[in-house]
């Protein structure tokens, strides 16, 4: 193939690239981003966010092909980066990645029942208490995997459609899952039993039939849960199973998280919402991507506290350093680029 054609094809690929997932390295200096072509790119946060960051330092340090399909979810353990795409979860040693030698450490495939289509894995959740990994996706089930042995210990079935998202209640060894079928289910990790079932779309205050009933994002904090997707983003009290607050956001939300006393969310709009428990929108921080798939707070690096939204769109991804910096991660010819913006800079 002529080099011109290669460039043209790459340019088109970049144009249609979507970053689905991201994860910060244990040291907090690196960010891994996975896109719809199955590639994982590693950015150096310290270089990209330093005051003398150049255009070059905003490009990936290294990128490699991780999956055949899109990389839907990523999570980092103390040593490894776990990524999931179509059917499989794969592990990469951070120590190798940093040295740019990207060799797969291991890969596991949950026991699937159907063989017609390989189900995707949409969400990964680490359970540090018993060193296990929860994964859920296209086969409508949540699987628990022991990271020590690699064995799949539990399977939580009950959803009638594929699972979008997972959340963990640390105190009570319980796990929440949100699904395309419009339900949020709570599972007991020890017994594997379904503890609770919330059909969010059936609550009139949350229901948005024009968008569908699917639950795309989910987050918990003690007795509280926030979930959104087709139905409006809403805050729930788990013990009483009632929606206490419905946030006035017109767009579908794709990621939500508790952060300090705020709720951060983002979705089909080019902005990151800072919400208060009371339901007020404290701030809407514009960002360049027109749809945000993932937010992430880098808690491991004290000097770079930021949420990193991963996105969809030609100019992918922007991130906000708690109220002061925006970080851009833009795929450029052949690669991604990281950048920082000062608070006063004009934002689209």
């Amino acid at each position, binding site marked *: 193939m*002529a080099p*011109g*054609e290669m460039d*043209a*094809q790459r*340019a*088109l*690929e*970049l*144009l*249609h690239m*979507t970053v*689905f997932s991201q994860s910060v390295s244990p040291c907090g200096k690196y960010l891994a981003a996975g896109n719809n072509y199955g590639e994982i790119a590693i950015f150096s946060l310290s270089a990209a966010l330093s005051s003398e960051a150049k255009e070059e330092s905003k490009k990936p340090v290294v990128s490699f092909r991780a999956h055949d*399909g*899109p990389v*839907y979810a990523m999570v980092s353990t103390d040593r490894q980066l776990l990524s999931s795409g179509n059917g499989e979860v794969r592990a990469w040693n951070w120590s190798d990645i940093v040295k740019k030698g990207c060799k797969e450490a291991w890969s596991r495939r949950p026991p699937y029942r159907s063989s*017609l*289509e390989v189900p*995707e894995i*949409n969400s990964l959740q680490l359970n540090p208490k018993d060193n296990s990994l929860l994964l859920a996706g*296209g086969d409508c089930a949540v699987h628990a995997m022991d990271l020590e042995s690699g064995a799949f210990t539990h399977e939580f079935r009950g959803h009638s459609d*594929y699972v*979008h998202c997972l959340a963990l209640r640390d105190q009570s060894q319980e796990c929440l899952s949100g699904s*395309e079928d419009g339900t949020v289910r709570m599972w007991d990790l020890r017994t594997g039993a379904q503890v609770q079932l919330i059909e969010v779309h059936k609550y009139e205050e949350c229901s948005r*039939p*024009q968008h*569908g009933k*699917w639950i*795309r994002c989910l987050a918990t904090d003690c007795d509280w849960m926030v979930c959104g997707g087709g139905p409006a983003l809403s805050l729930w009290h788990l013990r009483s199973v009632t929606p206490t607050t419905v946030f006035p956001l017109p767009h579908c939300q*794709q990621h939500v998280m508790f952060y300090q006393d705020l709720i951060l969310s983002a979705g*089909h709009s080019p902005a990151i919402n800072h919400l208060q428990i009371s339901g007020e929108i404290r701030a809407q921080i514009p960002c360049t991507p*027109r*749809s945000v*798939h993932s937010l992430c707070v880098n808690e491991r690096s004290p000097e770079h506290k930021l949420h990193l939204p991963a996105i*969809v*769109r*030609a*100019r992918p991804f922007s991130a906000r350093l708690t109220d002061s910096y925006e970080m851009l991660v833009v795929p450029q010819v052949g690669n991604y680029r990281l950048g920082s913006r000062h608070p006063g800079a004009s934002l689209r």
Partner: protein
Amino acid sequence: MSSDSSKKRKPKVIRTDGAPQENKRSRADPDQDVKYYSEEAEVELRDPNKDYELYKQTCQELQRLMAEIQDLKSKGSKDSAVAIEERRIQSCMHFMTLKKLNRLAHIRLKKGRDQTHEAKQKVDAYHLQLQNLLYEVMHLQKEITKCLEFKSKHEEIDLVSVDEFYKEAPPEISKPDITLNEPHQQTLARLDWELEQRKRLAEKYKECLANKEKILKEIEVKKEYLSSLQPRLNSIMQASLPVQEYLFMPFDQAHKQYETARHLPPPLYVLFVQANAYGQACDKKLAVAIEGSVEEAKALYKPPEDSQDDESDSDAEEEQTTKRRRPTLGVQLDDKRKEMLKRHPLSVTIDLKCKDDSVLHLIFYYLMNLNVMTVKTKVTTATEMTTPISAGDLLSPGSLLNCLYPGDHGKRTPNPANQFQFDKVGILTLSDYVTDLGHPYVWVQKLGGLHFPKDQPQPTVTADNSLSASHMEMTMKLLKTRLQSRLALHKQFASLEHGIVPVSSECQHLFPSKVVSRLVKWAALPYEDYLELSYTKDVVEAGLAEDTHLYYTALVERGTAKLQAAVVLNPGYSSMPPIFNLCLNWKGEKTNSNDDNIRAMESEVNVCYKELCGPKPGYQLLTNQLQRLCVVLDVYLETESHDTSVEGPKEFPQEKMCLRLVRGPNRMKPFKYNHPQGFFSHR
């Protein structure tokens, strides 16, 4: 007082002496002569010094006597008179002596004078003799130098060196025994040898002349024979022409072409030769010809240096005239521009024939003063084609060969030197003249062997055969591909305009048999309008939409849903895929910025175009992309989740077989068609 008295007396004495002497002489000369001679002889005998002593004695005696006389006179005594008398006699005696002495002195003086005179005469004679001798010496010296300066003619003759002489000359000439020691003899011998040699050469020369004469005569005879052959050959050629034509062997024509090719400027000549060579080696259907007036070209090339002088002269003149005649400045500039953009009267045409008998005519021109080549194109198709309105630019000479190589727009001159020439006559860019002159694509320069490096300016760019050869094959292939892809597009456009997506039988397997969405409209779109569309921003920002590209708009409809597509057609189609941007009007306006599935549909045609290329070389890509667009629109509409709050049946019942309706975090619809089974899955 005594002196006074003596003086008084002296003349007396002389008189008395003299008178009688004279008398005596006159009377008796012989006596006198004897006397005279006796006194002269006496002089000889007497010693002058003694005479001098005598003279002094006499003078003293006289003085004493005078003093005594004076004493006596002063005493005044009477007796003294005797004494005085005595003394007077004595003094007279002394006077006599004095007189004698005086005579002697006179004689001596005369004698001395005579002697001196005699000596002087002798000296004079000797001096004269000396002068004569000196003169003679000088003359002889002159003669000697004349002799020494004499140059013999033989010195001018270039002789063979001594060593060579002894080696080559026969011993009877060289005579080594004599000549070795005597340079004179040696020289003579060498001269003899030279003469001998010259004689021989002269003989040889005569022989050669004779020979030459003979050969000339022979040539004459042969020439006559050959010239008598020419008419016969001509008649044979004439007779063979129909046979040549019949056998498709245009030797004669080729010969004529080569004749005219001699008058081509170097770049066109390189192109002509290389294209011919390529045609003979690789592409028998390639037709290369030369057009234009040979006469004009000849006239142009006769005084090549003069013309250049003229140019500079006229430049200078023009400068002057511009100063003089300001009002006609514009006209003059116009003339100058025309002169600058003048092309060579000859042009090379290349006809590229494709398999389907369509022909790409390329006419190459050479702009003499700019040293660049341009090309004009024309396409003739095998079958008469109805021209679709939207295909206007497809085969137009302006855009047909656009970006044959990436970035080669053919609008600006590739010769950096031209800019300065333009500045002089006020041409802003060449692009204003391109339709008239033809396009100066970079590949055209390369075919003509002209290379204008960007980084290092070269003083003179000359046509280079190897450069042309290295680009010929690639360029010809590209040209053919371009023509075929354009013709294929042309055909496709013709059906697209009528709402038919002409999927070929080889590509049927790419699509389900039932496609409900229909192409309604296909039309060209001006570049400016494309830029203004809201949903094309990403493509424009990614630099994938340039003004040299072609732009179209397509409308796909199904029921109430209208899918608008803006298409960028890269000139490099089909190796460069067309890029689609979509905008769906159904339940609101949906574009890639607010609907992930629209974005997925775009990537389905833009990114996954490889599977849509169809049979090689993939000219069906555009058709297949449009067909896929119809298919994915079907999928999009049929799989759209039903809003349960709205009463009534779905507008688009699901007819497609899908494994799952949505998948993944972005809730993607199953756009991928799996051929034999006929179901849709996720990519």
